[in-house]
């Protein structure tokens, strides 16, 4: 279960602290999926990064199955991101120097279990329809294909939490449709908590839970 309790975030600026989040709270059970919407600069991505252990909150706590990643060491926090969280970014963030398969395997490089990651990577790439592009470099892929690689990479460690920041923001309609379908399908299959930040209403509409960030706080969509 993901618990986001009373999370606040301020950034220091020369003109005083800038409040991005003020007491945001959410909770999700395993297998749940939600979309967070809001205008640019509203703090959607900040909330996502706080949930994923990428950015510590100024106030409040985040726990995943009772584990507070910010109350641990940097090493444990990194392990938390590696084992429990999968990220998909708007511009995919693939390593240009690595092939498709290698990009998917990158998170496994710091895993210390004996799982057969290459096989799992191949399976994931098959599931996202890229089984014939394993040795291609990111530069040789389309935007939608890159994002599907990023999705496979996010799932390689079978995370409990999948966080997507505008995953279809740079994609055409067809690719966006395909990526969003895959997101929901794969997260459901893996019983992953899926949170997607988007300001694409069509994408948000596919999620059972929808929230809006306004005035540094979360509100149920349409409320």
């Amino acid at each position, binding site marked *: 279960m993901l618990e986001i309790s009373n999370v606040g975030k301020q950034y220091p600026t020369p003109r005083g602290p800038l409040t991005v989040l003020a007491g945001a709270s959410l909770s999700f059970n395993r297998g749940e999926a939600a979309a967070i919407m809001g205008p640019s600069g509203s703090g959607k991505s900040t909330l996502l990064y706080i949930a994923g252990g990428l950015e510590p909150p100024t106030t409040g706590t985040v726990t995943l199955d009772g584990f507070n990643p910010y109350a641990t060491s940097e090493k444990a926090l990194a392990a938390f991101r590696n084992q429990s*969280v999968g990220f998909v970014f708007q511009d995919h963030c693939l390593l240009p*120097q690595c092939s498709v398969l290698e990009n998917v*395997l990158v998170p496994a490089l710091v895993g210390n279990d004996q799982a057969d990651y290459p096989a799992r990577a191949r399976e994931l790439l098959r599931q996202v329809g890229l089984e014939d592009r394993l040795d291609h470099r990111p530069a040789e892929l389309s935007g939608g294909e890159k994002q599907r690689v990023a999705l496979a990479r996010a799932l390689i460690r079978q995370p409990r939490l999948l966080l997507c920041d505008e995953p279809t923001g740079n994609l055409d309609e067809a690719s966006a449709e395909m990526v969003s379908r895959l997101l929901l399908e794969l997260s459901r299959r893996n019983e992953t908590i899926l949170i997607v930040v988007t300001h694409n209403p069509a994408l948000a509409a596919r999620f059972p839970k929808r929230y809006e960030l306004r005035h540094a706080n979360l509100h149920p969509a349409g409320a």
Partner: protein
Amino acid sequence: MRIYTLLARNLAWYWRTNLAVLLGVATATGVLGGAALVGESVRASLRDLVLERLGNTDSIITRAGFFREELVGGFQPATPIIVMDGVVEHASSGKRAAGVQVYGVDERFGKFQGQPGDAPHGREVSLSAALARELGAKAGDEILLRVAKPSAIPLESLHGRKDDAGRTIRLTVGQAGDHSREFSLRTQQGDVRAAYVPLERLQRDLNQPGKVNTILVGRASGAAPLEQRLQERYTLADVGLRLRTLEKPGCLSLESDSAVIGDAVAAAAFSTAKSLGLHTQSVLTYLANSIRFGKREIPYSVVTALDSGLAPASQDGIALNDWAARELGAKVGDRATLEYYVWRSDARLHTETAQFRVERIVPLTGEAADPDFAPDYPGITGSRSLRDWDPPFPLDMSRIQPADEQYWDRYRTAPKAFVRLARGRALWGTRFGSLTSIRIFPPSAAYAEALRTALDPAQAGLAAIPVRVQSLQAAHGATDFGEYFVYFSFFLMVSALLLTGLFFKLGIEQRTREIGVLRALGFSAAKIRRIFLLEGAVLAVAGGVMGVGAALAYGALILLGLRSWWFDAVGTRLLSLHASVPSLALGAAAGMITGLGSVAWTLRGMQPVTPRGLLAGERKSGPLRWRWMVGTVAVILAAALVVAAHYGRLDQAAGFFGAGTLLLVAALLFQSVWLHARGLRAIGGPVALGLRSVQYRPGRSVLCIALIASATFVIASLDAFRRDGSLAGTGGYALLANAELPLIHDPNTEAGRAALNLSPLEGVRFIPFRVRPGDDASCLNLYQPRNPRILAPPPAFLRDARFAFQGAEGHAANPWLLLESKLAGGAIPAIADANSLDYALHRKLGEEFELAGVRYRIVAALQDSVFQGELIISEENFLRLFPDSQGYRFFLVNTPPGKADQVARTLTAALSDYGFDTQPTAALLASFHRVENTYLSTFRALGGLGLVLGTVGLAALLMRNVLERRREMALLRAVGYRRRHLFAIVLAENAFLLLMGLATGVVCAALAAAPAVSARGGHVPVASLAVLLALVAATGIASSAIATAVALRSQLLDALQSE
């Protein structure tokens, strides 16, 4: 997929950046390894040179005097030779060369050196190539060789032949020897200036048949140590001693070729006699000019000092033989006066007298009539009559009466008077000894061998010297060129490392988002740092390996420079590159470590940024207040160092470098603060927009400024340390002179000038120095001076208090007088030039050290003087330490203003028999300055290379910036900027960095070097410096312009469409 796969992918993908890093490390490695190679190459070249010149010589047996040639028999492989210094004159052209090494050799020498048939014959002489070139001599030409005439009798004693000190030999040039195998015993890097003369010819002309003064000994496997073999094989004759059996008194008489027995030999003679149960009688015989009683006198009489038998009982007593008593009309109780000559150490013959009371009158029979009390004096003892005497002092023949001749006829050198030994020693003892013979009673056949065994031949002047070992030690060099070139190349190395760090930093910055992704995927910061460090390590190792080649190239380039452009620093073209694995490994290791350190330093700033920040391309810099504080402290410390250097509390060079570095650091920190704080605010056009770009990456900008500033600092400041031909170090003396043959007479006196055949020179004053020849301890000699030349000035010179001192013990008002002080522990006070102490002798003021068994203490250091090649001690100590040293061989000469050249010519011509070689003191000082200035030029040239590297780095950085900002540029194009506007923007940024770097370097150099400029008399050639810096600026801007043009050539608007 493994971490190593990722590593390999990273290395390949970012190959451009990685190549730049690799080249940076390779350059640093090349510079370090190359510098180390230079040190090793100089040492190896010096080693090769000395070994080549020594040939098969391993050790030598040598003596100041001559010894039997047959001694060579016990030391095979070996060859007997004569080694001397001489002056050579080309007979037809009159060209002269002083300080020539003269070797008397025969076919045994050729065989010994593996060059049979190479020895000259008859009146032939072989000249070394350099000497032949200097004289313009070719085969068949006649030359005149002038060498010191050997004299067993000390020149500075009454019987020394002062006016016949040299011998001129006419020879014909046979061949200019084999250049590749020119023999020399001198450890010097310069050309061999030697004349190889037939041994037999030299022996004959020097009147030393069958004798030599040196044996070259080769390596003999399994042989006993040379000293031991010498001790077993030498004879008393080899050390100038002889034992005569005197039938009449029934004793052995130990006598010396020098007519006096040295104290060490006397001590051995006494102890040997005692060990054999024999009795001894010490004898000191002297020549009195007259024995006078009242108005009567006996001229030129032998007087013997004894302690037994015929000796009077009291110190003021004298025993006359009855012949003398009769001639004088003296009886017991009368007072007699002895008048005699004494040659004092002031280079003058003195007539002195001593009063005695006639205590005994002894009959002229038996022991009293013994002519063997007198040693053999050439020109006296062998004469048939008194009128035939040919002594080296004035005689008044008119005083000789028939009775005197009759006495000579009948009794020869039988003494006419006897005095107590102690009184005789007090009157006639010299530093060479105070006995003329030692008699041993009864004559023992065992005594000769016992004395030979007891006597250390080295004490008697016959020494075995391991020249090869000593020369190899000396070949380690006075100067560690490796160390010097590491210093000289420091800024080049720093530039390379800054560039390494800069390019690595660029690489990291380029991959900031990648780092963010990895962090988001669960890579810890430590893990990512390890990956990058591993990448850095691979690049460092590859760069290090690649740098080995660069080291060889750099080393070869520097050696080429030393052989050509920087010849003055080394004075030889015989330096070659010696690839040394340890030097290359050292360079590679140091390059790798410093390269990796540079990478690690760059990575240190990665931690504070959050993964999200990294994903957003965020960078963090350290707190600015800290930079202010450190910068301010650095400025204060720099000011303190400048003041300390100005007031002489700190070495100027140390003060300069310390202050300069601190000022540079402070300037860079302040600039960093300024750039981070958005110091450039206004945007008034494309140029101003370009200047704002300087703040885009403040760290990069500061690094660029640092790169240019540090190299500029070196170039701009070095002139402060140049010597400008100041004459302060000449002591006000216009000339100095070295004489090949010692001058025994004082050229300042009329008598001295008459003896030297020197016309009076108005206004010319000589300061004669005693000289113990030795190694040149100046910067002109690359070899480590093992036994530096020692000079001893007369006491009056010390009181003149000329020359400036850099430091003296106890801050003495006249540090020269410290030479006369008695030091606790018995060390000999010595003065040397501060430069020699620092760079050649590696000693400090107040340091005590031992040279050839004598302990010295540096009591004062001269400042930039003409005495850079030697140690100076007092004359009193000199005569005590080196009693065998004769006369004066170094002179400072005062001349009337504007007459120095004329005086030099006159002296050189008039004293040519002595190999008198004059040189303007300013010229010698200038030759030292030339070495120093050449080093500065070297430093400057390598600093210039650093500046070139910095400029290239700057251009590369600029290109990188432009490529990074292609979207920005494209946007500007999209809103209507023309290509020239973009060009102006980029160029403005680069010009700003370049000019900031140049200005920072120049200002810091000016501030730090100001005390040195005023104190050292250096001058700053503002015009040439300005031209140089303008050239650098122009080159930098031109290369930047090219880089900008290349970067802007692509279709920028495409950048707007791509990610």
